[in-house]
C-alpha cells in the first residue's frame, strides 16, 4: 500500500540523485518529469481511494526521535489531499516548463523543485509538529536557492527580503513548537493531536507570525513582490501556487485546531488583516505596470481572503478557504507561467511593450482569457464557487463584513480586466513583433493545459471537490468555533 511517505521520499531521493549524478540536460529533465508524474499518479490513486469521512488516511506513524517524543506521523485528510494534489500537479507543470525553457544547470534546478515538492507534501500531510516544521522550513532553502541562482536581475535584493521575513517567521515558529512539545505532560511529545489547547497567547502569536509572513498577510507582504517578480516563471508558479499555500493551509489545519481558544479570541485580528489585505492587494494590483506585479498583488489579496475564510471558523469559511487555495494555486501558477513565458519571449513583461497579443494568436488569447476570467471569479467558475462560499460565510459572520469583502469582486474585475486588455488588446506593443514562436506552442502549452483543464473541471463540478473536503475542513475549525460560541 502506497502511503504518503512514499510521495515524500520519491521526489526527495530523486532530487539527491539529480544533484549528485552527472545527468545530461535531457536525461535530467525526463527523470525529473517522470518522478513528478509518478507523484501525481500516486496522488490520483489517493483521490480515487479517498474516503471523505474516513479521517486521516494513507498515513504512517512510526517512532522517529524517541528521546524527544518525535514521531514520523503523516496522514491525509480531505484538506491535505487537496493541497497535495495541487502540489503534485503544479510541480509537474513547473518541471515541464523548466524543460521547455531550457534552464541551464537544469539538473540542479529540477532537483531543487523536486525537493520543494517533497517538503511541501510533508507540510501538507504532517501530523507531528516537528515533521511539519521540517517541511515548512525545509522548503525555504531550495526555493531560496532557486531564486538566488536562477532569478532575474534584482534577485539579490529579493533574497534578502525573503530571508528577512520568512526565516524570522519560521524560526519563531520553531520556538513555539519547542514549547508545545517539551512541556507536554508525560515527557516530550510533538503530536499535533496532543498539543491541542496547550499553548498560551505568546506561543500562538509566534506560531501565527510565521504563517502570517508565509502566506503572506498584510502588513508582512513586503517580500512577495520581489520574490515573485525575480524568480524564474516555474519557480514563481511553485512559490505562489503552492509554497504560499503552506501558510494558508497551516492556519486552517494546524494553528486553528491547535489553539482553539486563541483562534476564537483573536479571530477578529485575522479577519481584519485579511479584509485589509484583500482590499489593499487588489487595490494596488490595478496600477502595476507589469504582469507579474499584478499577479503578485492579486496573490496577496487572494491569500488574505483565504485566511479571512479560515478565521470565519465555520464550515463555509473553511471549505471555501480550502477550495479557494486550490483554485488560486491553479490560477496563479498558470498565470505566472504565462506571464513568464511572455516575458521570456518578448524580453520584457512591462505593459508598455506588450499589448495587442490577441491578434492572430488564438491559443494564447484563449488561455489568457480563461485564466483572467477565472482570476476575477466570473460566476460559474470554480473560483467563483469558492469565493462565494467564503463571502457567504463572511456575510453569515456579520453582514457588514460580507458587504466590505464583496467589494473585492469589483476590484478583482478591475485589475484583471486591465491585465487582459494590457496584454491582449488595444495597440500592439513594440516588442510583440519579436515574439518567436508567435503563439503558445506545444511545449509551453502542454505545461499550462493541465492547470487550465483542472480549473474547467472544477468549475463544472465543484461539489466533487467540496464533498471530499467539507468534512475535514469543518472538523478542523469545529473546536475553535465552539470556543467562539458558534
Amino acid at each position, binding site marked *: 500500500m502506497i502511503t504518503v511517505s512514499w510521495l515524500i521520499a520519491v521526489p526527495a531521493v530523486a532530487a539527491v540523485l539529480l544533484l549528485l549524478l552527472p545527468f545530461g540536460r535531457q536525461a535530467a529533465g525526463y527523470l525529473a518529469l517522470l518522478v513528478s508524474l509518478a507523484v501525481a499518479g500516486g496522488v490520483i490513486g489517493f483521490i480515487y481511494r479517498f474516503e471523505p469521512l474516513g479521517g486521516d488516511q494513507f498515513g504512517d506513524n512510526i517512532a522517529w526521535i524517541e528521546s524527544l517524543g518525535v514521531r514520523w506521523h503523516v496522514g491525509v485528510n480531505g484538506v491535505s489531499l487537496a493541497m497535495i494534489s495541487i502540489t503534485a500537479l503544479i510541480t509537474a507543470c513547473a518541471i515541464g516548463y523548466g524543460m521547455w525553457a531550457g534552464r541551464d544547470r537544469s539538473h540542479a534546478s529540477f532537483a531543487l523543485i523536486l525537493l520543494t515538492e517533497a517538503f511541501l507534501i510533508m507540510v501538507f500531510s504532517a501530523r507531528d509538529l516537528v515533521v511539519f516544521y521540517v517541511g515548512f522550513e525545509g522548503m525555504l532553502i531550495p526555493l531560496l536557492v532557486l531564486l538566488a541562482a536562477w532569478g532575474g536581475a534584482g534577485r539579490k535584493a529579493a533574497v534578502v527580503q525573503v530571508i528577512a521575513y520568512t526565516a524570522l517567521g519560521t524560526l519563531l515558529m520553531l520556538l513555539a513548537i519547542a514549547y508545545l512539545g517539551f512541556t507536554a505532560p508525560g515527557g516530550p511529545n510533538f503530536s499535533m493531536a496532543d498539543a491541542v489547547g496547550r499553548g498560551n497567547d505568546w506561543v500562538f502569536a509566534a506560531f501565527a507570525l510565521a504563517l502570517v509572513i508565509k502566506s503572506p498577510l498584510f502588513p508582512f507582504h513586503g517580500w512577495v513582490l520581489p520574490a515573485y517578480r525575480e524568480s524564474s516563471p516555474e519557480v514563481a508558479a511553485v512559490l505562489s501556487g503552492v509554497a504560499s499555500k503552506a501558510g494558508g493551509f497551516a492556519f486552517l489545519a494546524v494553528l486553528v485546531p491547535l489553539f482553539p481558544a486563541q483562534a476564537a479570541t483573536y479571530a477578529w485580528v485575522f479577519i481584519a488583516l485579511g479584509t485589509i489585505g484583500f482590499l489593499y492587494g487588489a487595490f*494596488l494590483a490595478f496600477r502595476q505596470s507589469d504582469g507579474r506585479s499584478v499577479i503578485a498583488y492579486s496573490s496577496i489579496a487572494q491569500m488574505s481572503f483565504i485566511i479571512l475564510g479560515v478565521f470565519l471558523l465555520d464550515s463555509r469559511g473553511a471549505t471555501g478557504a480550502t477550495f479557494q487555495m486550490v483554485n488560486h494555486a491553479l490560477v496563479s501558477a498558470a498565470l505566472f507561467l504565462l506571464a513568464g513565458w511572455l516575458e521570456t519571449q518578448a524580453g520584457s513583461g512591462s505593459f508598455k511593450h506588450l499589448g495587442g497579443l490577441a491578434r492572430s494568436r488564438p491559443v494564447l488569447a484563449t488561455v489568457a482569457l480563461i485564466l483572467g476570467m477565472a482570476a476575477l471569479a466570473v460566476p460559474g467558475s470554480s473560483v467563483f464557487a469558492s469565493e462565494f462560499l467564503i463571502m457567504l460565510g463572511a456575510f453569515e459572520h456579520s453582514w457588514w463584513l460580507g458587504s466590505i469583502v*464583496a*467589494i473585492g469582486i469589483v476590484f478583482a474585475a478591475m485589475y484583471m480586466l486591465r491585465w487582459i486588455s494590457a496584454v491582449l488588446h488595444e495597440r500592439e506593443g513594440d516588442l510583440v513583433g519579436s515574439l518567436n514562436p508567435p503563439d503558445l506552442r506545444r511545449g509551453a502549452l502542454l505545461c499550462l493545459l493541465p492547470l487550465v483543464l483542472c480549473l474547467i473541471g472544477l468549475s463544472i463540478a*465543484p461539489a466533487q471537490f467540496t464533498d471530499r473536503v467539507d468534512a475535514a475542513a469543518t472538523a478542523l475549525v469545529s473546536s475553535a468555533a465552539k470556543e467562539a460560541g458558534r
Partner: protein
Amino acid sequence: MTQLVWITLALPLIGVVLLSILGMKLPAKGAGWLASLIMLAAFLCAAVATIMLASRPEGDRQVVEVAWVWLTAGDFSVGLDLWFDELTAVMLLVITGIGFLIHVYSIGYMKDDPQSRRFMAYLNLFVFSMLVLVVSANLVLLLVGWGLVGLSSYLLIGFWHNKPKAIKAAKKAFIMNAIGDVGLALGIFLLFVDLGTVTYSGIFAGASELSETQASIACLLLLVGAVAKSAQLPLHTWLPDAMEGPTPISALIHAATMVTAGVYLIARMNPLFVHAPLVLDLIVIIGVVGLLMSGLIAIVQTDIKRIIAFSTMSQIAYMFVGVGLMAYWTGIFHLFTHAFFKALLFLGAGLVIHALHGEQDIRNMGGLRKQLPKVYFCMMIGALALSGIFPFSGGFSKDAILASGLHVDSPIGWIAYIGGLLGALLTGIYTFRLMFMVFHRRPSPYAEKVIPASVAHHGEGPSSMLWPVYILAVGAAVTGFLQIPGVTHLAFSWLDPIAPDGMVEATVGQDWLTTLFGTLIGLIGIAIAYHLYARESDAPERIRLGRGRLFQHALERRLYWDDLYSWAFERPAMWASAFLSRDIDRTAFRWAPLDGLGQLTAFFGRSFTVIENGIVRMYALVLALGIGALILFLLVRGG
C-alpha cells in the same frame, strides 16, 4: 418536456465547444451556419417544450428538476436546478428565437471579418449564458448566468479588440455589472441567512415569514443587480458606450435579451417583492425618471446606435414601471414586443451602417429612403412600434403598462401614468428624428458619395441580413395582438400563474383610454420631429445655440453621469492606488526591511570589525578591558 429544455440549454454550449475546437478548420461561412443551425434547433426545442407546457392544465405548469449538486458546504448546497414555467418559456422563446435570427444576420454582417468564427462562438456562449440565467431554479445559478452574460457581453463589446474605445467600453460594462453582481450576491447571502435556502421555491415559501425590513433590504440588493444589468439609473452609463460592439450584439444583448434580465429578475422574484412595497415604488420611480431622462438624452444624440441605445434604456424603464406596479405581465409583455421591434431597429441600423461603410453619425446620412426602401419600410414598422402607435406591437404593451398605473390609482400610479405619457412624447420625437434624418431630408455629401456604389455593389444587403429583418418586422407589427384589450387575453392569462399573489390588470376601458392618449401623444411627438427634422430647418440649431444651450449641453454630456463617476470614483481610486503602490507600499513594506535591517546590520558588522584590525596588542587590550568590565560587573552585582 424538461429533456427538451435541457437540450435547449446544451445546444449552444455544444456550439461553443465545437466552434472553439474546430476553429480555423471550419470555413468562415460554415461556422456561421453551424452556429445558426444550432440556434434554430434550440429554438425548435424551446418551442416544442413551450407547446407541451401549454398543453398542461393551468396551475400545473411549474416544473422543477435537479440535474446535479453543483456546490456544497455544510448545510449549504446549490444544484444545477431547472425551473420551467410560463415565464421561463417566454424567455426561452425570445432568447432562442431572436437569437437565431441574429445569428443568421451575423453571417452576413461579419462575412468580411477574419475573426467571424470567434464571433460566432461568443454568440453561442452568450445564448448559453442567458439560457442558464432564465432556466435556473435557484438564485446562485441565476447569478452564474448573470455573470456569464456579463462575460459574453464583455467579450462581444470588445470584440474588435484593437479599438481602444471598444475595449474601454467593454471594461466599463463589465465593472458596472460587477457592481450589480455584488448587489445580487449580497441579496442572495441575506436571503440565505434569513431563510436558509437559495432555491426559488424555498424563498417563495418563506417570503411571507420575512419582516418588511428584511424583505425590503433583500429586494433592494436584488434591485442593485437588476439596475446594473438593465442599465437603469444609476448604473446605466455603460450601455451607450457598449454600442462600440458589432451591431448584431447591440441588437441581441443590448436590446432584446440581456439588458432585460433585470425585468425578468424582478418578475421572477415577485413573491418576494410583494413583501417590499417600498422597493416596488422605488422601482417605479427609477423607471419613470429613467425613461424621461434617457428619452431626453436620446433627442440630442447623433450616433444612430446610441440613439437606439438610449431608447432601449427608456423602454426598459417602462418595463420597470410595469413590474414596479405589480403588473408583472405588462413588463414581460413589453419585454417580448420590445425584443422584436428593438432588434429590428438595430438590425436595420446595421444595414444602414453597412451600406454607408461603417458611418454611424446620422448627420452624415439622409435621404436613404430611395436607395434602401426595404430597410426603410421595415424600420418604419419598428419606429412606429417603438413610438407606441396603435396598432403596432409596442403600443399594446406600453399602454398596458400605463393603464396599470391608471388602474392602481395611487400617487405612484399617477406618476407612472403621467411620466409614461410624457415619455411617449419624447419617444415619438427621438424615434422619428432618427427616421427623418436618416431616410428623409436631403442626402448628406457623404451619403451621396458612398451610397450609390454600395447599393450597386450588393443591393440593400445580403439576404442573410435582410430576411431576419423581415421576420422581425412582421413580429414588431403583430405581436401586440396577443393582448388586444377586450379581444385577446393571451399575455395576461399565460403569465398570470407566475405571481401567486396576483397581478394588476387594468380594465378594458382604462386600456383603451390609454391607447388613445398614447397614440395621440406619440403622433404629436412625430409631428414635432417632422417639424424640426424632416426638412431643412435651422430650428434645431437655434435651440442648440439659443436659450436651451445649457440644457442641450447637459444632455449631450448625458447629464454628467460619466463625469460624476469619473471624478467621484475612478480618478481618486487611480490616484490612491498609484500613491499607495509607489510611495507607501515600497517604502513602508518593501524597502524598509531591506534597507533598514539589511544595511543596518551590515553597517554594524563593518563598524565593529574595525577593532579586529590584526594588531595583537589591540586584541590583548580588548581582552584586558573585557576582564576589567567583567570584574567590575561582578563586584557591583555580587556586592
